[in-house]
Each structure stands twice: as C-alpha cells, then as structure tokens.
C-alpha cells in the first residue's frame, strides 16, 4: 500500500496539515477558532481517507462530520459561548498542576505509541514478507481491472459498492442498531435541551415543580 509520487506528496501535505490544525484546535483561545481549526483538521483527514482509497468514507466524513456535527458545534458555541473569552482575560487552560501532569502523561504516551507502531510494523512486515513489488504488481492488476472514468484519466473504483454490499449484507444488524441508536440520540437530545416552559407544557406540570 505504499504511496508514491504525487500521492506521497499530498499525503505529507495533508498529514501535516491535519496535525497542525489539531494542535491549533487545542490551543486556540477563541472557541470559534477552535471549531474552524477542527473543521480544517477533519477535511485534511478526509483527504487522507481518499489517499487511502476510502472515498466513500471521505465523503461521509465531510458530509456528516463536518457538515453536521461541526455545524452543530458552532450552533452550540453561539448559544453558550458568545463573548466568553473576550469579556475578560479568562484563563483557557486549567491550573498549572493539571496541565503539567497532562503534558507529562501525553509525552509518555506519545513515545510509547510511536515506538510500538514502528516495532509493530516491522513485526508485521516480518510476518507477511510480501515484497513491495509483488504487492504493487497485484495492486496494479486489480487497479487495471477497474472501469475507466468518462474522461479516461482515472478509474472508477468499487469502494462505495463494496462498502454498501458489506454494510447491507454482513453488517445489517449493526446498521439497524445504529439507526436505533440515532433515534435514541434524537429523542434524548430533544429531551435534554428543553426549556422549563417546554417541559411544563409537554407534561402539564407546573413550571415551579418541573425539575
């Protein structure tokens, strides 16, 4: 699955962009800035998805994640957060000890994860020693099998088709459960965010008794 050429270039561009945007998400003072940085991070990750030949997931990510969840975030920020930081020089980070402890743990975690990824990957390669050329050759064969696009410059992959066929056949139960989960989430969020007056009018409960 080695990327090469322009793919590798764009991989690095978007990868670094994702990391950078994520960092800024965490470090931005303004919550709206944080949201926007998160959006850019998500889009970068979507591009990475495309590079990993998961086009459908990339689309889903942009549509649902960015287009739905982040918009929701922005709405809520507008509801609760407007002018919170500008009002005063509010502290955005926690107290010193918490931050210090967190950073120490995170650094330890980073070191551990990077080391384990590399070691694991070397072990993986040792176990499945298919050489790059053989893998690439196989992949090229599979890629050639795809139909060419209308303009002829690229191929139309079967990613969406395979995701769909697996999702509706082998993963249909989790699919249904996920739909129920979403239903529950809808109901729950509606209920949680009701005002007192809305609750009172719904249950015929006196406003002072509604909790």
């Amino acid at each position: 699955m080695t990327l090469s050429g322009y793919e590798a270039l764009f991989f690095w561009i978007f990868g670094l962009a994702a990391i950078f945007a994520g960092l800024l998400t965490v470090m931005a003072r303004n919550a709206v800035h944080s949201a926007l940085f998160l959006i850019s991070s998500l889009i970068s990750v979507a591009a990475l998805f495309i590079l990993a030949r998961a086009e459908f997931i990339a689309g889903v990510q942009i549509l649902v994640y960015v287009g739905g969840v982040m918009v929701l975030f922005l709405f809520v920020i507008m509801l609760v957060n407007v002018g919170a930081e500008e009002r005063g020089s509010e502290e955005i980070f926690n107290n010193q000890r918490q931050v210090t402890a967190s950073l120490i743990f995170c650094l330890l975690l980073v070191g551990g994860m990077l080391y384990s990824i590399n070691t694991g990957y070397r072990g993986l390669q040792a176990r499945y020693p298919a050489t790059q050329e053989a893998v690439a050759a196989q992949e090229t064969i599979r890629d050639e099998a795809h139909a060419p696009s209308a303009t002829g410059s690229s191929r139309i992959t079967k990613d969406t088709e395979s995701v769909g066929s697996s999702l509706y056949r082998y993963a249909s139960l989790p699919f249904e459960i996920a739909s129920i989960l979403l239903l529950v989430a809808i109901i729950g969020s509606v209920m949680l965010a009701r005002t007192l007056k809305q609750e009172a009018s719904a249950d015929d409960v006196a406003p002072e008794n509604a909790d």
Partner: protein
Amino acid sequence: MQKYIWLVPLLPLIGAAINGLLGRKLRFSERLIGGIAVGSVALAFLISVAAVYSYGFGGHPEWPKPYLTSQDGFSFNWIPGGAVSVNHGAQYALLNIEWSYQLDPLSSIFMLIVTGVGLCIFVFATGYMHGETGFYRFFAYMGLFMFAMLVLVMGSNFLMMFVGWEGVGLCSYLLIGYYFDRQEAANASRKAFITNRVGDFGFALAIFGIIATFGSAQYVNVFEQAKSYPIELIGHWGVLSWIALGLFIGACGKSAQLPLHVWLPDAMAGPTPVSALIHAATMVTAGLYMVTRTNVIFQHSQTMLLVVALVGAATAIFAATIGITQNDIKKVLAYSTVSQLGFMFMACGVGAFAIGIFHVMTHAFFKALMFLGAGSVIHGMHHEQDMRRMGGLKKYMPYTYWTFMAGWLAICGVIPFSGFWSKDEILWNAASTTHIPLGWVVWLVGTIAATCTAFYMTRLMAMTFWGRERFLEAPAGGEADEAHASAYDKGLAPHDATFASAGDRPRHEPGEHVGPVHENVAHHVATHGHGEHHGAHIPHESPPSMWVPLAVLAVLATLGGLVGIGPAFRTLTGTEHPGGHLNIVTWLNPIIWNPVTREFNTPEGGHEAAAPIETTHAAPPVAEGAAEAGHGSVAAVYGDTGFNLAHAVEGSTHSELATEWIFIIISLVVAGIGMLLGGLFYVWRPALAGVWSQRLRPLYVASYNKYWVDEFYGLTVTRRTMDLARAVFSFDSRLVDGIVNGLAWLSRLFSRIVGGFDKYFVDGLVNTVAAFIMRLMSPLFRAAQTGFTQNYALVMVLGLMVAVAVFFARDILAVFGR
C-alpha cells in the same frame, strides 16, 4: 334371612347420613327427610322381623344357639389383637375383637322393640316436628341413635356394646340439646352426658376386668368360661362380683337408677319424640339389656344381686313419690319411667331376668304410648305442658284420649293389659325369690311403689283429660304461644310456626308472664290485662301422622302382655309358660343361666320336664336330670336366704297356685286403691288434694323439690369440683406462671447486663478504631473527590497507561533489557 341382620343397624345409619349431610345442602323437603328416615327404620324393622322369624320360628337348625354374622362372613376384624395374658393359668390368649352381630333370643327381642317402637315414634315425629327449621337435623340424630342402639343390642362382644353405649349417650346429648339456643336444654343435655359418663367409667372398668379375667370380649367365649366359676355368696367378694359391680354402675348411669337418676327428668327439655324413644323405650333400657346379657356374672355374685334388687326397689319408690307432686306432664312421665326402671332392676335382682325383659317390652309399649300421647296433648294445647292449665281434653282430642287410656290402664296393672302381666310377675318373683335374702322387702317396696304409680297416673289422667277445662280460665302458655295460638285460630299462622323457642317450653305459673317474643306483646298485655279471657284457644286433635302410631302402640299395650302369661294361669292355659316359642320366658331361656344346673337353657322351676333341647355346651359334672329341681335346689345353691314371704304364705295355704293367686289379687287391689285415691283426689273431691298437701306439708315440699338431690349434688360434687378447678388454676397462674415469668425476668436482666457490656465496651473499642482509621484516611480519600471532571479524565489516562504497561510488560522490559 338371618344373614342380613347386619343391614338392620346400617339402614338407619345410611338414612341418618343422607339426612344429616345432604338434608340442608340440597334443601330436602320435610316429606323427603321424613320419608328417608321412616323408610330406613321401616326397612330395618322388616328385616328384623324376617330374621327373628326365621331364627326362632322357622326351624333354624342353630336355635337356640346364638347366630353370629361372622358365621356367614358378614363381619370384619375390628381390632386385630396382640397377646393378652389371662388371669387364670399361665395361658396367653390372642385378644381379637371382631365387628359382628349376634342374633339370639335377647338381642332379637330388643331388635324388634327398637325398630318397631322406633318406627311408630319416627312416624309420630314427622308430624310433631313439622315446621321446625332443624327438621333434617332431628332425623339425622334420630337415625344415628337407632344405629347406635342397634349396635348396642346386636353386638357380639362387650366392646361393640360399649360403642353402642357411648353412641346412644352421644345421641341423647345431641337430641336433648336439640333446641340448643335454650339454656335449659343445653344444661340438661350436658347433665345427661356427664352423668352417663360417671356410669360409663364403671362399665369400662368392668370390661377391662372381663378381658383380663376371661381373655376375650366375645359373649360366647366369656359366658362359656364364666359358667364354671364358683358362685360368690354374700360375704365372699370375688372377681366376678367386682365385674358385676362395674357393670351395674354403668347400668345405673344409663338407666337412671338411684344415685345417677338426676339426668332423666331434666332430659324432658328435648322434643317429645326424643323423650319417648330414648328416655322411655330404648336407651334407658340398655342397662337392662346389659344386666340380662351378663346374667351369668350377676348370678355368680349374690351380693350384687342383692344390691341390684335393693337399688331398684329404692329407685322405684323414690321416683314414684316424687311423681305424685309434679305439675309438668312430661316430668310426671319421666319420674314414672325412673320408677318403672327400678321395677325392672328389681326383677333382675331377684333372679327373674326374663321377667325383667318382659317388663322392658311392655313398658316400651305403654310408656312410649303415653309419651307420644303427652306430645299430642302438648301439640294440641299449643305447647302448653303444665297440667294445671289442662283439663277436660277428653272431648277435644278423642283419639289421644282413648289411646292414652290404654296406656294408663296398662301402667296401673289392670288385667288384661300388658302392664299387669309383667308387673305381677315381678312382684311374685320378688316375694318368692331364693336368690337373695330380703325378698319380702323388695316385694313390699314394689307394692307400695305400684300403688303410688297408679295414684299419680290416675292424677295425670284426671288433670289432663277429665274435669273442667281449666285452660279457658287462665291464659295458657306464654305470650309467644298466645300470639301463635290466636293467629292459628284466625287462620293467619300455619300449624306450628317456628317461633323462638317454640317447642317444649319452660314451666311457668298460671298468669305469670313469660318474656315477650313479639313486639306487640306489650300492647297486647296493656289492652287485655292479666288473666282476662280473650277467646279461648281451643285445643285441637293431632293429624293422623300423630295419632295413628298412638293407635298402634295402644293395641300393643293392650295385647302385648299376652306373650308373658305367667304360670299362675296354668289351669287356664295348660302349661306354665303358654305359647311355646312365643312365650317370653321360654324364648329367653337359652340365654338365662341356671345356677342349679350351671347351664344355659334349662327351664327354672320343676313343674314340667325340660324339653330335651340339644345344647353343645360342655356338660358340667352336675346331673342332667336336674330339670326337676325346684326351689330347693336354688336354695341349695344360694344358701339360706332368710324369710321368704311366698313360702310363708304357702305354709298357710299349702298350695302354690293359691299363693300365686293371692299375690295377684293383692297387686290388683293395690292398683285399684291407687286408682281410686287418684280419682278421689282429682275427680270427685278436688279440694282434698289441697287439704292433704297442707297436712303433709313437709312430705309435699320434699317430694315437690325432688328431695333436693340436685341441690345436694351441686353442693358436694359440682361446686366442689369447680372450687378445685379454681384452686388449681390459681396455683397454676401464681406459682407456675410466676416461675415462668420469673425466669423471663432473669433472662431479661441478663440480657441487659450483656447489652451494656456490648454497648459500652465492645462498641467503644470498635468505634475508637474506626474513628482513628477514618481520621487518618479520610482526608486522603476526600482529596480524590475534586468534582473536577478533568481530574477524573487524567486518572483514566493514567490508568490506561498502567494497563497497557502491565499488558506489554514483557515487551517493554525487553526493550530496556536489550
């Protein structure tokens, strides 16, 4: 047909069970209940007649041996036995009690009496008890009684007799207390049962003695062995005398003899058919049955014979004198019953057991007749029982009157009614007995009692049926019956509507107001006042269901004595005991033990050769030709018995026949004297009764108060028992409960001590330790609860790292170990 005698007790029991269990649930009509009850008894009667006929008159090969149903398999092993050691010898007998019925001359007579007279009384009761809410209950209990009585008389062993004994006692309790909502009836039923129990105690001891001595309870076995025991004369008291004593105590209780007679008059609180059946004809004769059945044992003990005779005589005169002054018609008849039972025991005591049974039979006829007649009178008088308010009922209730007259003549002993034959024979045998000394005393007392009997029965007839109609002068009955009677006259109330405590009522004085039952009674009294005559309630004759049995019994009372025409009439009849098997003495011979020949079934007296009836009893050494033995041989058995009245008279007349006739004339004369005196005092010169009762005031008061026997018993027995109970109770509640409570107090004290120790010492220790730890650790743990979510998240991350490190411990160490 004998095989089916086991049906005879069973049929009334089935009838009783059906009536009792289903009568109320399925709401049987009175006709159905009565039909079931009467039908079952009638069927039992028919089977008894057929069985007795085929046994005694059909040439049954077994006659006169008793027939047991176990011979044909209609029995079952009731109490399978273990080994019981028998008194004599070192032998062990296997005591096996079976439930089988015995048909022999004695039990056959009782079967016929119980079912026959019982049938008449059942029919009467269907009319008398009409309208009662407990109709089904009455007939259920009566059927149960029939069953128990038949088991008593038909049983083949003493234990079955005891079962029947207790059963009739129970049914007597249930039936006397039939009106259980009335205090008087409840008390009377309890009294009857408890007094019976005193007698049963003696009976039970006697049964134990019988089983211990003879090793069996079956009649045939016991009597077979008892035959050969030596006779115990007066002054020698042996095992047979003990047994006889226990048996007689039982008989006293059941048959209301002198110390235990107190329950019978009070038992009149039950319905009149009950009084007729149980307390006149059948239950009270159970004692007689028992004594006659065990005549072997009694004849072995001269002392007990004397006791029986004297107690019987004393009872006869005692009750007769009380009966003279009673005003309740049923009480008079009750005391008359006690007196007549005394006569029967007199007969048994002097050795004339067959005559005693004969008197049982005739007494059943005329006493049941008179009780039913009294019931008819009471019914017709709208439940009035006080004779002072009756009078002149002759023209209002003719059937009752004429049938009652038959009974009156019978009990007075007028020839040729049944009572004459039996009573005369009793008195003759008392005068001429050689079984016991003091026979003449028994005769004298019996004669005086007979005079009194005639007197008070004539008094009863006069006050009830003759003379002026006193019920027109004073209000008859209490207000309840007033209202009922007026309503009935106007046709508003049905016959015998069920008012509260309708039925046999408490006695009250003329003019006395009984507690009101109707709301408008006060108004009734206010408008009508005391004693004001407001339209007499005319007594009415009873319905046919009530007077037809009276007629049947009247016929029996008139003609029933002909089965016992005595030897005095042998010039007329040609034999000593005319009638062959029908003659009661001949009939009962097989079960009477003759002390001379030491055998059953030898005729007493020697005026004709005994018919050579084959017996299978082993012949004892006494000569076979002892049939000619006359009085002398009996005297030889029992020794010199002192002055013998009959012999004294015979010494003057030199003819036994003449002697017998003299005694007959005497008993007729005394009966006539009694009747004349009764007529004098109560028909021709009624004022004389008041005059003489004043002159003999102390005697009158003593007789009227029944010689204060009940009060005496209350003082000595009843109240002292209750005092004992109270003393024991106070002992128990103070001492025993005190001990128990004291122990409880001790344990509570102990628990308080231990609790204090636990609370202060142990808990203090624990609390100190816990507080120490808490003060040490609490701030530490508290510090972790910051409420700050991110702290918790940090701890989660830390935990994640620790978990990963632990999981990959080997690999991590491998890195650094490299």
